[in-house]
């Protein structure tokens, strides 16, 4: 099983949302949505959700939950680690 690291999460964000920034420039607490953060949109969110699911085998089925989980790279890591513990 793949290890959940901040680097891996950042890489997933850059790949799935086709960002033109270096993944190292994204901080653990950088907001993914909104003008103060990376400014991702709902298509990006969907892509990222699928990317997380296929990488870690952790589906996010509830869109409300997805917004919570995808707030920052840190919140993604936090959630995925716990899912892997109990649900993988």
């Amino acid at each position, binding site marked *: 099983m793949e290890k959940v690291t901040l680097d891996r999460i950042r890489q997933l964000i850059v790949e799935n949302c086709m960002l033109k920034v270096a993944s190292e420039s994204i901080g653990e607490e950088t907001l993914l949505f909104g003008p103060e953060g990376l400014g991702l949109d709902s298509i990006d969110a969907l892509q990222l959700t699928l990317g997380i699911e296929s990488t870690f085998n952790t589906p996010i089925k509830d869109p409300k939950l997805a*917004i*919570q989980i995808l707030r920052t790279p840190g919140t993604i890591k936090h959630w995925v680690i716990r899912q892997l*513990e109990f649900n993988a």
Partner: protein
Amino acid sequence: MNPNWDTIVIGGGPAGSTTAGLLSKGGQKVLLLEKDTFPRFHIGESLIPYGNDVLHELGVWSKLEQTGFMPKLGAEFTLGNAAGFQRYWFGKNLAPRYAKTFQVERAKFDHILLQHAEEQGTTVLQLAKMTSVEVDSKGVTVAYDHEGASHKAKARWIVDGSGRTSVLGQALKVPRSDLGMPKKIAVFSHFRDVLRNDGDAGGHITIVRLEHGWFWFIPLDKDKTSVGLVQTISSLKSQKLKPEESFQHAVENNTEIRFRMKNAERLEAFRTEADYTFRHNVASGNRWLLAGDAAGFIDPIFSSGVMVALRSSQLAARAILKADAQGRGLSGFEQWNYTRRVKKMTSVFLDMIRMFYDRNAFEVFMGPNPRLDMPRAVLNLVAGNTDLTWDLQWRVWVFYTMCKLQKYIKLAPRLSFAESPRRPKPVLTT
């Protein structure tokens, strides 16, 4: 023993020993009566940085560092389903003296403070129980039992640091209010091998908000973690479970709690505290003051208890030293001002506590808007800053306004407390 004192302090917890320590340091002859024998267990194990100043003034900070209490560099909040996470670092945006505080096992912490008061010159009597008190415009007469005999002591001042029991508040029949808060119950214990955060966040307090209630995780030392569940008494009753059963049930049914507790081993019996919210309408008379929990206690959620105890005791000691130097009691204005300032501390927390228990407001708390520098304002609240400068005050007002509006307009993402469905366990075939 000499029956004449400058000040008599009731209770040897942080409020009592801080008042006594500062008064002794100021040259007073102080008698402190403690009904228990120290060290003894007490709940309220997390400090917040705005109490640090008082610990420095007392001269006890370096002792705390040497004792090896867990350094606390911040606080974090998450949900039972582990979706959503907000971490604060005191070192970001606060003055360096507030960058760190401690998680403390109260048996040790309170004992250090009490011994420190003794070193400053306070006469400490343990297993000394106040039986009656008379207060007049010149001072007080206290009767107490100690070592199987009844004694009397007189003083010009009395400070009640007896905690939520508030023996003086009761004796003087000071009116009190429950502040309209629903009655709650906390069930808690100490555990070994609770999962810790990595790195510097290892000393953070973790608050896990459930739909109906919340958990605290307070790392006390290398091995020991304090874990507690708080919920309304009505919520507990509706589950038809005993407090400790409700605790276990929550551990099994919330991803975040289960994750942290998966290897945990309980070290002591569960304890409970219930129906703890109250505040005295008045905290001072011309010869008496209520300090710390004796003045009022709202809720454990933001760890304000010890901070309010330290800061109110500092105010009480200053008020006494000033008036005593002029050979008088506290003026009407000074009494009103002491009450006002202590109430202000608890009121700042009362607002936050109401926010935390309100689902809509909590959504704003978990997603503070970075555009208005909102996270910095919230950090100040979490750190216990109750004297907000104007640039923080207006942000806090905006924050609470957003909390109120969130019910009608989505200003922060709606939170879901739903658990992801668990996959069935693989069936073992033989």
